[in-house]
């Protein structure tokens, strides 16, 4: 008997998924390997080379302090990608079980969880970032938590919707009929059904988180300088855009590339799983 191709095989067959995966892999390697790949440390100042044009010693130029733009962009990407991935992971881990619980158990549990989620929804990410920065100080953790607080409600709502529809299916009744308790049914029969939509949404939300992290850094709510970050570098070089456009273009293009890669991956996965445009 012909075995149906597994989900992973089907996903890999899609060019969109393949190329975006490849791009993401390259981005991860470049930024995580920045310590070895980048020609200079990200904070090495060479006052004589301020606004050095691309070429020669500095492949894509130097910024106002004579720091190598390539090195800073590579190092800065680490922060962006880590924040994007961690914030999404945290949001998935909090939001999906909560939402699935609300959808499957229903009643008062659903009411309480849904109200908490509703309450989180209207807070702008900037406000949350300011609060977490005040409470937890500068650093990766406060940015990650602020972003995951913004993302959690979306995952919770999606998981709730999915759990609500799964709970109506006969195999849930059959599972109850074979003596499985609520916790086991959630774990074995409800959560696995959330996997596909969660994976797609998570991929798209990494893109969103990278963009949001860049915006926060741009506003000075990310890691404080001289730590390299795409948003922060963009902000620092903004005034020199006409004089030395490479200082702005490099981090700007990097953000675009990263967001594009994750968006394409999410899009590609959605096509493969064929679950329509219901989410995000």
């Amino acid at each position, binding site marked *: 008997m012909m075995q149906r191709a597994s989900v992973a095989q089907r996903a890999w067959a899609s060019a969109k998924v393949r190329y975006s995966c490849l791009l993401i892999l390259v981005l991860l390697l470049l930024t995580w390997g920045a310590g070895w790949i980048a020609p200079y440390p990200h904070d090495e100042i060479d006052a004589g080379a301020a606004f050095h044009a691309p070429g020669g010693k500095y492949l894509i130029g130097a910024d106002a302090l004579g720091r190598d733009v390539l090195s800073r962009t590579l190092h800065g990407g680490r922060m962006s990608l880590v924040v994007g991935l961690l914030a999404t992971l945290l949001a998935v881990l909090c939001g999906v079980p909560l939402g699935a619980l609300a959808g499957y158990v229903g009643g008062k549990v659903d009411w309480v969880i849904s109200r908490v989620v509703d309450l989180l929804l209207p807070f702008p990410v900037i406000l949350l970032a300011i609060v977490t920065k005040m409470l937890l100080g500068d650093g990766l953790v406060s940015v990650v938590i602020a972003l995951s607080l913004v993302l959690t409600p979306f995952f919770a709502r999606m998981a709730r919707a999915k759990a609500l529809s799964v709970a109506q299916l006969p195999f849930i009744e059959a*599972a109850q009929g074979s003596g499985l308790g609520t916790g086991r049914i959630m774990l074995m029969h409800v959560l696995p059904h959330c996997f596909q939509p969660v994976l797609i949404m998570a991929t798209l939300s990494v893109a969103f988180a990278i963009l949001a992290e860049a915006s926060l850094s741009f506003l000075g709510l990310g890691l404080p300088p001289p730590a390299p970050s795409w948003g922060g570098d963009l902000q620092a070089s903004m005034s020199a855009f006409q004089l030395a456009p490479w200082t702005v273009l490099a981090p700007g293009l990097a953000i675009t590339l990263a967001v594009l890669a994750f968006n394409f991956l999410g899009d590609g996965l959605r096509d493969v799983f064929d679950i329509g445009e219901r989410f995000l």
Partner: protein
Amino acid sequence: MNAQPPVLSIEALAVDIRGARVLDGVSLMIGAGEALGLVGESGCGKSMTALAILGLLPRGATIAGGSVRLRGGELLGASEDALCQVRGGTVGMIFQEPGACLDPVMRIGRQIGESLQLHRGLRGAAQQAELRKLLLEVGLTDTERVARAYPHELSGGMQQRAMIAMALAGEPVLLIADEPTTALDARIASQILDLLDTLRRERGLALLLISHDLAVIGGRCDRVMVMYAGRVVESAPAARVFAQAQHPYTAALIAASPGIAGVAPKTDLRDIPGQLPAPGTARDGCAFAARCTLARPVCAERTPRWSRLTADSGVRCLQYEEGWSCSK
């Protein structure tokens, strides 16, 4: 007097859904190795009875009275933990649509293994060995492939066999089969029924076979109970029900069935005009009166009581009560 309590005994079970009575005074008894067939049209309360036994009534439905005893132990009002032991443990349940009742994203072996672990604490190699035994017992001989398959990779008949294996995993004493063959074609259906028959004999299981189809019940059950609008209207040994139905509804059901084992196939089928009364409508009188060919005005006024005809049969119809001959 039998010293052992019957495997399942239900007495005067009543269930309400938002104030409307959907089960009224349902009583039945099944002994070990015995098969009871529960017949009636859709919506008459057959499935509700099965769900009430397991404490799995849908939201909004409440038990209004009665008792459900499994080997003498009361199930109504039992704790959720105790009920979880019963479900899939002492009572195995087989549902109507095997395709929809198996989790589509979980391999068959794992789903059955889940029950083996939950009810018998079997893990690892012991679980695999027991799984193989169960699959062989239900006639799935290609055990390796079936255990690794996802539900959609199996045919309907194989899915139902897998469901039966799952129901057997907890070594039940009672098997409830709710329309086990409705979703299957005729040949597969009779194979599944034969399998249930064999299992009942070999394991000494009590079997509650629920169906809307008299042909499914006929020849495979010791006793038949006919339900109408939430009430049991007739109960008798299977052979006698088909040979001489006492209740007009049973007679009408038989007249509307194309072929029943042991009874010659018919060419003229007669429909039962009218419909089941909606739940919650007035309960005065006989619920079948509006569709009954023998109905008299009194049928709409007086609710029939259970009339015992012989030691093992009874009927709920005014014909058998005193005063019928002189009533109008």
